[in-house]
C-alpha cells in the first residue's frame, strides 16, 4: 500500500525547500540497502514486516543472489511530517510534506563509479558505518568523494543489534566504540573541509549522527531520547542532547550531572549509557528472554502500543516488532535527513562553483545558484538505466535549473563537447519524463529543478553522461564531467562463438557501455573486442549483463585477462643515436632519459604522476610549468621552456624536448617530429605498449636544404625510428600496474593473509590493528597480473573471513632486463607480442639506428 500518489509526489516537487536529494553511501556490507528499506517502508511502498529483508533497492536478480548492491537505484519518497516533529526545524519550509529523492549506492569498490554518479545528483549523503568494523577503506573513499562534490554528510552507526546480541557489550565499551567510529569519520573528513560547504563534522549531540539497526528496522538519534527526558529533567531538548553524549555523567543516586566520572559511586554513569544504551539493552534482553509481563510494563511506561497479533510473537521477532514500534528507524533517520541535509535551494548556492564549467555570472550559473524553476534548463544526466525489456535506456539525472517537460527539445552536450563547436552536440526531443516510485515508474508531465528525473528518448545520443539545456541556449556551458576515483584496468577480450553473430555482439557492447559509468568497450589492433572494467567483480557483472541482457543469451567466448603495461627507460641513453631519413638526406640525433632524476625523493609524486594529475600539461602557462618542474623536480629552467610536446595523445606522461642549438629549418620539421613522437610514445619499441615517464631530447638535426626532401614523409618515420633507438639504448624496462589491496581480517588469521599476499608478489604497505576490535587492517601492493586468483586463494586460506578490496594505485617498474633470456619482463613482452601479432623478438637496435 503506497501512501502517496504520483500527483502528490509531483506537487511536492515544486516546493524546493522541502526536497532532499540524498545518497546512501558506505563500505560494502555495512547495511545500506537494508537500512534504506526502513525508509521505503515508512513511505508505505513495502510493509514494515519485511523491511530489512526485501532490499527493495536491489532490483537485479544477481544483486539479490550475491547479497550486494551493484547498481545505484533511485527512489522518490514522499512523507508527511507532523508539526510536532518539525517544531525545532529552523530552516525554510513550505508545509509539512517532504519529498526525499534517495539513491542507494553499491559499497564494493568495483562499483564506486556508481557512487560518483549518485553523489553528483544529490546534495546530501547518509553515511552508514558498521559499529563494529568501523570506518573502512571504502567509507573513506566515498567520504572524500562526497566532500569533493560538496555533498553534506550525516552519519549513522549501523548494526547496533550486533552490540547487544552478538557481542553483548556493556554500555561504556559500546560508547567507546561508537565514539571511535565518529571520530574516525571526522578525521577522514577534516582534510577536505570546505569553507563554502561549512563544517561537515558530525556529532551526536548536534543530531547529525544516528544509531541504527537496519536489519531490525529501528534507529535513534540523541534527540529521540532527549524528547523522552525533557519532561523528566525539565531542560530543553538541545541541552538534553548535549548531556546525552560526551563526558557527561549522571549519578542516579544523587540525581546530579557532572563532567567527570565519579569513580567512587557505582551509580554514576555516562549519560549516553544511562539513558540511551541501557534502556535499549533492557528491552532487548527482556524480549529475548520472553519475559512478557515485564515487557508490557516497560512498554506502557514508554507509551508504546503493540498490535494484538504482534503480542503473540516471541524472541527475535518480538524484539524486532517492539523496537520498531518504540524507535522506528524511519522517524530518526527522516528527522536527521530533513533537519541536517540541505535542500536543493540551499545546496545549489554553494555547489554551483563545483558544477558549472562556464562563467559563474552568466544566466545559467545564476539559475543554478537560485534553483530557479523558471530559469533556463540545466540537467545533468549522470547515468543510463536499462529499461526492462525494450533494449532502450532511461537517461537518469538531476534538474539543476528550469523545468524539463515531456516534448521539450533539448540540446545534449556530451563529455567531449567544447563550447562553440559542434562536436558531441545533438538537439533531440524528450519523449517522456518519468519519476521512480519504488520498482515502478510513473510518467509525469514535467519535473522542476531540484529533483531527479528519468527521461525517455535521448538514449541514442548519450553514451554515459551529458548536460542538457534548452535547444536555443547556445551559449550555455556544460556541467563539469564527473571524476571517478577508480579507472578501468582489468580487460578481457570477447568474441562470439559463432562468427556470424558479430553484429549482435557489437550491439550488445554498445548497450553495455551505456549501462555502466565506467566500463569501456573498445577494439584492439588485432581486431578483438575488449571490455575494460574496474575490477574482477565489475568485469564479471559486465560480461554477465552483456551476454544475458544485451545479447539475449548468445554464446560468447571470453578471453583471459589482458593486462596493460607501460614502457619506460631507467637511465640516460648510452650514446646519442642517429637515424637517417629514407632518402638518406636528413639525420636526426636523439637521446632518451627518465623524466625523473635519479635522486628524486621516492615519497614525492613523479613527473609522470604530476602529468596524470594535470598539474602540468600541454595547455599550461610556460612559466608556471617551468616553475613546477624546476622547483619540484630540479629541472633546468630553460629546459622546461623547450618542451615541444606531451604524448601520447598530446597529453600523456612523456615529453619531447628540443635541445638543439642554431639548427636551420628546425621550425619547419617540428610538427613532423612531434607526430613521430606521438606515434612512438603510443607504441613503444618493446611491446607496442604506451610509454610512461620518458623524456626524449632532440640533440641535433641535419636537414636537406630543399624543403621537398625534408617533408613529413621523410621526417615522421625517421623521428619515430630515432626515438625507438633512443629508448633501446636507455635501459628500457616494463612497468606493471599495481593494486593497493585493503584487507580487513580478524587478527587471528592475519598470518595466513600475509602468506597468500607474499606468494602472489604482494608487498606490505601498512598494517594496523583496529583498537577495541579483534580486527586488523592490512594494506598491500599487489601486481595486477597476479591478482586474478588472489581473492579465491585468500578466501580459501582464511575460510572466507578476508575480503580484499583492490584498487589500481600506481605503475611499478619491473626491475629485470627484458632482453635477458628468461627474465619475467621478457616473458611478458613475448606474450604481448604474440597477442598483438607482432614479430616474436623485439626489433633490434640496428633496425632503428643508422651509422654515418
Amino acid at each position, binding site marked *: 500500500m503506497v501512501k502517496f500518489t504520483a500527483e502528490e509526489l509531483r506537487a511536492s516537487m515544486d516546493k524546493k525547500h522541502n526536497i532532499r536529494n540524498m545518497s546512501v553511501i558506505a563500505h560494502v556490507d555495512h547495511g545500506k540497502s537494508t537500512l534504506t528499506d526502513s525508509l521505503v517502508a515508512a513511505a508505505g511502498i513495502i510493509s514494515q514486516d519485511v523491511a530489512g529483508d526485501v532490499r527493495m533497492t536491489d532490483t537485479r536478480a544477481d544483486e539479490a543472489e550475491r547479497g550486494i548492491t551493484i547498481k545505484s537505484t533511485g527512489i522518490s519518497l514522499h512523507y508527511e511530517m507532523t508539526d510536532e516533529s518539525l517544531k525545532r526545524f529552523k530552516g525554510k519550509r513550505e508545509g509539512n510534506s517532504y519529498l526525499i529523492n534517495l539513491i542507494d549506492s553499491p559499497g564494493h569498490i568495483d562499483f564506486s563509479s556508481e557512487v560518483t554518479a549518485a553523489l553528483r545528483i544529490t546534495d546530501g549523503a547518509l553515511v552508514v558505518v558498521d559499529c563494529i568494523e568501523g570506518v573502512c577503506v571504502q567509507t573513506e573513499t566515498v567520504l572524500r568523494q562526497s566532500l569533493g562534490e560538496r555533498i553534506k554528510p550525516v552519519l549513522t552507526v549501523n548494526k547496533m543489534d550486533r552490540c547487544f546480541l552478538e557481542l553483548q557489550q556493556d554500555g561504556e565499551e559500546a560508547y567507546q566504540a561508537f565514539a571511535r567510529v565518529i571520530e574516525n569519520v571526522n578525521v577522514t573528513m577534516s582534510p577536505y573541509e570546505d569553507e563554502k560547504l561549512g563544517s561537515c563534522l558530525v556529532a551526536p549531540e548536534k543530531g547529525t549522527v544516528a544509531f541504527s539497526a537496519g536489519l531490525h528496522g529501528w534507529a535513534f538519534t540523541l534527540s529521540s531520547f532527549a524528547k523522552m527526558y525533557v519532561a523528566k529533567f525539565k531542560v530543553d531538548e538541545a541541552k538534553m542532547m548535549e548531556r546525552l553524549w560526551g563526558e557527561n555523567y549522571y549519578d542516579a543516586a544523587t540525581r546530579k550531572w557532572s563532567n567527570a566520572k565519579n569513580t567512587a559511586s557505582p551509580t554514576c554513569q555516562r549519560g549516553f549509557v544511562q539513558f540511551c544504551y541501557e534502556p535499549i539493552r533492557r528491552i532487548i534482553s527482556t524480549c529475548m528472554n520472553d519475559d512478557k509481563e515485564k515487557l508490557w510494563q516497560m512498554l506502557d511506561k514508554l507509551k508504546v502500543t503493540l498490535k494484538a497479533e504482534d503480542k503473540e510473537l516471541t524472541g527475535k521477532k518480538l524484539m524486532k516488532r517492539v523496537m520498531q514500534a518504540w524507535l522506528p528507524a524511519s522517524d530518526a533517520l527522516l528527522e536527521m535527513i530533513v533537519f541536517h541535509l540541505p535542500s536543493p535551494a540551499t545546496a545549489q548556492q554553494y555547489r554551483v562553483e563545483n558544477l558549472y564549467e562556464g562563467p559563474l555570472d552568466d544566466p545559467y550559473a545564476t539559475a543554478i545558484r537560485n534553483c530557479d524553476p523558471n530559469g533556463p534548463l540545466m540537467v545533468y544526466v549522470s547515468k543510463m538505466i536499462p529499461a526492462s525489456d525494450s533494449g532502450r535506456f532511461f537517461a537518469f539525472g538531476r534538474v539543476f535549473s528550469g523545468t524539463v517537460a515531456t516534448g521539450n527539445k533539448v540540446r545534449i552536450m*556530451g*563529455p*567531449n563537447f*567544447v*563550447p*562553440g563547436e*559542434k562536436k*558531441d*552536440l*545533438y*538537439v533531440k526531443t524528450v519523449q517522456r519524463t518519468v519519476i521512480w516510485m519504488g520498482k515502478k515508474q510513473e510518467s509525469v508531465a514535467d519535473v522542476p529543478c531540484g529533483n531527479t528525473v528519468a527521461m525517455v528518448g535521448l538514449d*541514442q*545520443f*548519450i*553514451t*554515459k553522461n551529458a548536460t542538457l539545456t534548452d*535547444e*536555443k541556449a*547556445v*551559449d550555455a556551458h556544460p556541467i563539469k564531467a564527473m571524476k571517478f576515483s577508480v579507472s578501468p584496468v582489468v580487460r578481457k577480450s570477447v568474441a562470439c562463438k559463432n*562468427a*556470424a553473430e*558479430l*553484429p549482435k555482439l*557489437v550491439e550488445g*557492447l*554498445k548497450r553495455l*557501455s551505456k549501462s555502466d559509468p565506467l566500463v569501456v*568497450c*573498445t*577494439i584492439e*589492433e*588485432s*581486431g*578483438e573486442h575488449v571490455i575494460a572494467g574496474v575490477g574482477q567483480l565489475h568485469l564479471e557483472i559486465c560480461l554477465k549483463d552483456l551476454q544475458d541482457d544485451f545479447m539475449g543469451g548468445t554464446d560468447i567466448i571470453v578471453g583471459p585477462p589482458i593486462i596493460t603495461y607501460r614502457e619506460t627507460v631507467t637511465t640516460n641513453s648510452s650514446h646519442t643515436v642517429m637515424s637517417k*631519413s*629514407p*632518402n638518406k638526406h636528413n639525420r636526426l640525433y636523439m637521446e632518451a632519459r627518465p623524466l625523473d632524476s635519479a635522486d628524486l625523493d621516492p615519497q614525492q609524486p613523479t613527473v609522470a604522476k604530476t602529468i596524470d594529475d594535470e598539474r602540468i600539461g*600541454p*595547455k599550461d602557462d610556460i612559466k608556471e610549468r617551468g616553475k613546477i618542474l624546476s622547483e619540484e623536480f630540479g629541472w633546468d629552467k630553460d629546459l622546461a621552456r623547450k618542451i615541444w610536446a606531451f*604524448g601520447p*595523445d*598530446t597529453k600523456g606522461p612523456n615529453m619531447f624536448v628540443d635541445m638543439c642549438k642554431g639548427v636551420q629549418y628546425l*621550425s*619547419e620539421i*617540428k*610538427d*613532423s617530429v*612531434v*607526430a613521430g613522437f*606521438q*606515434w612512438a610514445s603510443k607504441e613503444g619499441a618493446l611491446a607496442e605498449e604506451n610509454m610512461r615517464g620518458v623524456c626524449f631530447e632532440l640533440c641535433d638535426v641535419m636537414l636537406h636544404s630543399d*624543403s621537398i626532401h625534408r*617533408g*613529413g*614523409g*621523410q621526417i*615522421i*618515420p625517421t623521428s619515430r625510428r630515432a626515438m625507438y633507438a633512443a629508448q633501446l639504448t636507455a635501459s628500457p624496462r616494463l612497468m606493471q600496474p599495481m593494486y593497493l589491496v585493503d584487507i580487513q581480517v580478524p587478527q587471528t588469521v592475519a598470518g595466513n593473509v600475509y602468506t597468500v599476499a607474499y606468494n602472489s608478489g604482494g608487498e606490505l604497505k601498512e598494517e594496523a590493528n583496529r583498537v577495541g576490535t579483534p580486527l586488523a587492517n592490512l594494506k598491500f601492493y599487489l601486481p595486477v597480473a597476479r591478482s586474478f586468483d588472489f581473492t579465491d586463494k585468500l578466501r580459501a586460506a582464511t575460510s572466507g573471513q578476508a575480503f580484499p578490496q583492490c584498487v589500481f594505485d600506481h605503475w611499478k617498474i619491473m626491475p629485470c632486463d627484458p632482453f635477458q633470456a628468461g627474465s619475467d619482463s621478457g616473458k611478458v613482452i613475448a606474450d604481448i607480442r604474440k597477442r598483438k*601479432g607482432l614479430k616474436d623478438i623485439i626489433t633490434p637496435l640496428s633496425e632503428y639506428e643508422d651509422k654515418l
Partner: protein
Amino acid sequence: MDDIDARYEVPRTADFIRSRAYTRVALQFPDEMLRDAAAVARALRRELAGGGGGGVKLFVMADTAYNSCCVDEVGASHIDAQCVVHYGHACMSPTSNLPAFFVFGKMPLDTNACGRSLLECSRESDKHILVLYGLEYAHAIDDLKAVVAELYKSHSGSVEVQYADVLCSVMSPSSAAEREHDQSDGNTHSNDVSIQSDGVATFVNNCCNVEGSKRKYNLGGLTWSTPIDDNMEDYVLYWIGQDNSAFANIVLTFNKCDIVRYDTVANQPSRDVSHLMKILRRRYYLVEKAKDANIIGILVGTLGVAGYLHIIEQMKYLIKAAGKKSYTLVMGRPNSAKLANFPECEVFVYVSCAQTALLDSKEFLAPVITPFEAVLAFTRGREWTGEYLLDFKDLITTEKPEISNKTEEARFSFIKGGYVEDSCTEGKEEQSETSLALAEVTEKALSIRNLNNDAVLYQGGANSAIDYLKARSYRGLTGEYEGPAPDSVLTGRTGRAAGYNHETTKSAQ
C-alpha cells in the same frame, strides 16, 4: 634455348601474335624474371621470323609503376603497343584498353605426392573437394587429374573432386569488340575469354554469378561452377601453391570454408591459415578505425584495372555522403615515407587490383584499407558480417549507393569507446531548422577556432586539409608581407622557361 622456349611458352606466344597480326608488342616482365627478358625477346623474335611474322617490334617493359601482377597499360601505351604479353604471376584483373596475353611460367609440381595428399584430405572430410591452384601450376593440373583418378580407382574412393579451370590466358578489354578465341590455347576452356568491364554488378559478391542451374565463380584467374543449391561452405578448398597474395585472396574471400594448402616446396599439406584469419580480424579493426576518420586519401594504385575510374568516383561520392573529406592521390607502390607526406589523411583507400589491395599498413602513419572496407566503414548501418571482397569490380554499382540521412542514432566508436558526432550534419541543419537560424549564427560568431592545435594535428581533429594547415606551427612562406602593396602592376615575361619570348630574339642574334 629450348629451356627458355618451353618455360616461357615462346611458340604459343608467337602463334598468338601472328594470329592477330600485331606489329608492336610489349613484353612485361616482373623483377624476378627480368634476367631472362633479353633471351625471351630474342627467342620470340626468332620464332616470329621463322613463322612469317617478321617485322613485329618487341619491347621489354620492367619495373612497373604499380604492381607487376597487373598489366601495365600506361607503360605499353608509351610505345603504342597493340598488345601486352605479361610474364609471371598475374592477378588477372581485367584490362581497360589493351589486350593481354599471359604467360604464367611453369613451376614444378610433384603430382604423385600432391595426388596422394589430396586423396588423404578427401578421406578426412565428407565434403566435396574443390582444387584451386596458383596459375604457375596450371600446366600440371591435367597430370594431377590423371594421377588422382588413378588413385581413386585403386582405393575405391567415392568423394568427388572438382577442379577449377584457368579462366583464360588471353584477355581483351571489351567483350563486344573482339570475341576471338585463341584456338591454340593449351588449356581447355570454352568460356567467354574476356571479362565484362561495363560493371553491371550485384552489390555483394560478383565473383559469383548464377548461370542456369550452376553458380559460377571467377576469382584471381580461376573459374569453377557449383550446383546452385551448394554453398561454398560445403566444399573443402584445396589450394596448390605458395602462401602468396593469390592464396590470401582465396582465404579471405571464402573465410568460412575449410582450406587446405598444399605446399609445393615442402610437398605436404597444411591447414594452418590462422595468420590470414589474423589479417582478417585486423582488417575489421581498420574498418572501425576508418569510421572515425574525417579526412580520407584515395590512393590510385592502378591505371589499368578495368573500372578504376568508376570506383574512384564511387569512393568520392561515398566519402562525401558520409560527411567526410577526400583527396585523391596517384601513387605507385605506397610506402611509409610516401604516405607520411600527407599526415592530414587519417586513412587511405587503396584502389588497386585484388592481389595488391591488401597492404599491411602497420608501419604506416595511417592505415590503408580496400574499397570494400571503405564501403563498410562509410555506409551507416552496414555491419561487418564476415563476408569479404578484395576485388573492387564486384563493388561497382551503376546506381549511386543509397545513403540514409536518417541519423536515428549517434555512431558508436569502438576506438574511442563511446558515441561520436560525425561532423556531417552541419550543412543540412542550417536549411532544415530555420527557426534556429539566428541561434546558429550566434553560435558561429562565438566559436573559437583551433583551441588545441595538438589535437588537430595528432588526434584527427581536422575536418579538411585547410584546418590541418591552420593548426601547423609552420605553414611555409606565408606571403603576408608587412610592407605596403607593390607600387604598380607590370607585365611579366611570356613563354616557357626554356626560352621566354623575349629571349628568342637574343639567341637569334
